[in-house]
């Protein structure tokens, strides 16, 4: 039944994590950034599930649930901020322009 070894899933998680990270770094669109963050969180979730399976510990999946909740909350807040910024006249979903706080 169990087809994936721990190491294989670790590798998968690492690659997924890095793809998500690359997404955050590359994209200027806040929407894409949020999606990339989700990918990163998923990578972490994969790690927990795989490890839980490896150690036969349900803690991993409990953690997965928590990550799920976190992802939901973070996405919700992030989207709310996007909407707020959009509403306040940010011309686009650009994360870089109009940075008022710097220096």
């Amino acid at each position, binding site marked *: 039944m169990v087809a994936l070894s721990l190491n294989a899933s670790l590798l998968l998680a690492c690659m997924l994590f890095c793809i998500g990270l690359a997404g955050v770094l590359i994209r200027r669109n806040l*929407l894409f950034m949020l999606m990339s963050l989700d990918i990163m969180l998923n990578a972490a979730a994969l790690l927990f599930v795989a490890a839980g399976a490896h150690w036969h510990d349900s803690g991993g999946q409990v953690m997965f649930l928590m990550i799920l909740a976190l992802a939901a909350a973070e996405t919700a807040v992030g989207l709310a901020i996007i909407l*707020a910024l959009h509403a306040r006249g940010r011309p686009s979903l650009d994360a870089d322009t109009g940075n008022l706080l710097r220096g």
Partner: protein
Amino acid sequence: MNTLALFSGAVTLLGAIMVITRQVAVHAVLYLVVTLLGLATVFALLGAPFAAALEVIIYAGAIMVLFVFVIMMLNLGQSDREREKEWLRPRIWLGPALLSILLCAELIYSVSSSPQQEGPLAPLSARDVGLSLFGPYVLMVELVSFLLLAGLITAFHIGRHRTEGR
């Protein structure tokens, strides 16, 4: 390691890559759903059917809807697409991509250099998870509710500004 595992892993990765390279947000959301489905398969293959189900139901089902909803509200059009195209020049993505690849290489190097560990791989049923969830971790369930509450209030707080700010 069977082909299904390989296939689902590959789908997950490809989907993720597609997500971060799309120009149209809706496309990206769809690819993200594909990635999540792939991941759900992986979860299932890892012997975690409960997690797989939740991944599909909550993540792909609920959270993605949020994205779609927001994209609709933002009313993105052709100009946004052109802009995304502009932003996706190699010159722009090359640096971050290199950085990520470097990180990935480091991670993979160190992960794969560790000895192969083979543990008892028996599936963890929903019952197991539920037992521990409402057993030792019941306080965490309460705590995570506060996490959600915080998210809720924050989102509400920010969202309310949105209407007031106008």
